[in-house]
């Protein structure tokens, strides 16, 4: 099959209708399962969110809530036996066309990865190839997607290292990852991700593995670059403090579903879902009151555990840990409006 043939069939099968002109990404009723011989982990169920050009959407949720699986579903990089079993992932190509990534061919996905949608990962220490210099790794990204020669790719790699504020970029370009600290490596990952001017950057907990001061520097850097390069960012984190700093909009995930979505101010001012309230109560604050011994007052932790993804309750997944639970919470509940641009998956709080 020739290249153009494939592109045509792609466009038909991967129908991208339904994306507003100012939107880059729309995930609609996404379900991702890991199907094993005798059981199925329903890791993502019925997740929807939309991301406008130039904005930052934060997906927040505790460990295991499905944040990484969501981003890997978008990238088409799920590991076996993970499958997108339902829903659409609409993406606007830089050409202006919209495609549904769930139906896109392998070749289309290869052209999108790195060029259109870039991703940086949680683990800066292990996400770079230990056997290649950082310069070669960045340059590889450039010549994979752009018509250029070695010398130019290298020159651009140096520029990118400067862009992410690595001192002595001309020298560091020939370093191997093991010569660099975690923060430096994450800067390299960012440089690599930005190499081809992607319109969407998926950052999967880019600062979680870093210490607090480095974390703040990386967040500053990402904010600055977003303004300069006009990209949209899907920012994944489990830290409400980070959300407050970087996000325009927030989707809160719990056990594979989105329980609440709102613009960031609204979410912090008027959280609706009991789980969101619990998360907000657990933000560490510098000015948190101290008790008489001068110790910080303990953070509120949400008691109980997340239900098994192999054996989910039919009703609200948070029901087992919720302080407001009632008999009616054992019935299925959907994400519905509870205010301007504000969606919540709790019937009770919506009424309140």
């Amino acid at each position, binding site marked *: 099959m020739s290249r153009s043939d494939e592109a045509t069939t792609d466009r038909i099968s991967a129908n991208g209708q339904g994306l507003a002109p100012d939107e880059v990404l729309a995930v609609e009723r996404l379900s991702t399962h890991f199907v094993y011989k005798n059981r199925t982990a329903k890791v993502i169920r019925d997740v929807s969110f939309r991301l406008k050009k130039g904005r930052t959407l934060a997906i927040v949720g505790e460990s295991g809530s499905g944040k990484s699986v969501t981003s890997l579903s978008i990238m088409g990089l799920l590991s076996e036996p993970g499958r997108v079993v339902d829903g659409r992932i609409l993406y606007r190509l830089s050409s202006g066309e919209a495609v549904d990534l769930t139906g896109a061919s392998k070749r289309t996905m290869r*052209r*999108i*990865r790195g*060029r259109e949608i*870039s991703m940086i990962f949680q683990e800066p220490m292990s996400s770079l190839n*230990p056997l290649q210099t950082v310069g070669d790794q960045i340059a590889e990204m450039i010549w994979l997607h752009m018509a250029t020669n070695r010398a130019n790719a290298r020159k651009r790699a140096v520029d990118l290292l400067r862009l992410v504020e690595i001192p002595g970029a001309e020298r560091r370009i020939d370093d191997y990852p093991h010569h660099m600290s975690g923060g430096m490596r994450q800067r390299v990952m960012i440089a690599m991700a930005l190499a081809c001017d992607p319109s969407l950057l998926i950052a999967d907990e880019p600062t979680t593995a870093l210490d607090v001061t480095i974390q703040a520097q990386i967040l500053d850097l990402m904010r600055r670059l977003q303004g300069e390069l006009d990209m949209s960012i899907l920012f994944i984190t489990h830290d409400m403090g980070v959300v407050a700093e970087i996000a325009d909009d927030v989707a809160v995930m719990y056990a594979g579903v989105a329980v609440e979505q709102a613009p960031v101010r609204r979410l912090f001012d008027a959280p609706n879902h009991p789980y969101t309230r619990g998360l907000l109560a657990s933000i560490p604050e510098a000015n948190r009151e101290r008790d008489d011994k001068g110790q910080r007052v303990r953070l509120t932790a949400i008691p109980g555990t997340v239900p098994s993804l192999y054996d989910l309750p039919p009703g609200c997944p948070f029901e087992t840990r919720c302080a407001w639970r009632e008999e009616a919470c054992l019935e299925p509940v959907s994400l519905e409006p509870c205010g301007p641009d504000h969606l919540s998956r709790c019937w009770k709080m919506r009424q309140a």
Partner: protein
Amino acid sequence: MARYVAKRVLGMIVVMFIVLTTVFIIVRLAPGDPASLMLGPEATPADVVALRARMGLDQPVVVQYFSFLGQIATGNLGQSIFFNQPVTQVIAARAEPTVLLTLFSIVIAVAIALPVGILSAYTRGSLFDQGSLSTAMLAASVPSFWLGLIFQQYLATGAGWFPVSGFGSPSATFFERVHFIILPSIVLGIVNSALIIRFSRAAMLDVLNDDFVRTARAKGMSEWRVVIRHALKSALIPIVTVVGLTFALLISGAIVTERVFNLPGLGSLVVGAVLRRDYPVIQGVLVVIAGLYVLINFLIDMLYLAIDPRVKY
């Protein structure tokens, strides 16, 4: 880097020294007096005394030890009793079939094992994976002499593609001699590919789950490039180790195969020397093989240096 190399060279010398000492002790520990054993029961006491003097056996052990080390340091492995020639010459005359057999076998083993191992890992749990694993098990448990006989039967006698055995006439050209080596090399290559298959599969499985392989995919490159340029290069580190080990084992493994295919190599030389109690030859071959082991280990260390920038200097 220079320090790394210097360290390995020093290590190589130390190991070689230990090996030589061990060889010296083992040969001295063999029961009976080498001179009278060599000359047989009909020898006169005068003959025995003369041979003992020629072999230096009348000297104190310490003197014998140092003259042994000194000789080897100058490249002198002594004089063969049976051939009445320097051992170095005897070995040189028999080295070609063994060297060719070993080299061809390792090339064949790697040529089979690497693609099979990679594909097995990549398609883990597939029919191909299961099939190749059980075939590898089978290959590893088949005795090489048996496989050799089967191949002789079908590919040499039956199909007539290869000579059955031997190494050609002394006037045979290099390519004619190579023709004699191919069949035994295939046998040894198959038998020795099993271990490399298992290792390269395991190494690839390990690497394919690494985060940087996911990064490579996220960059939008082809699967081929992900697997060969990124994953395989990392997996090569353990694979090189096992290939080196196999190579070293092959040198001794060649002995059996040389017998089956009647190749006039070091294997048959050693077997003959044992039967004839030609001690200097046995000792010389031991030293040469030990030297090759040490050299291969050194080369593996140098390969690490070339592959992995994290190797500590």
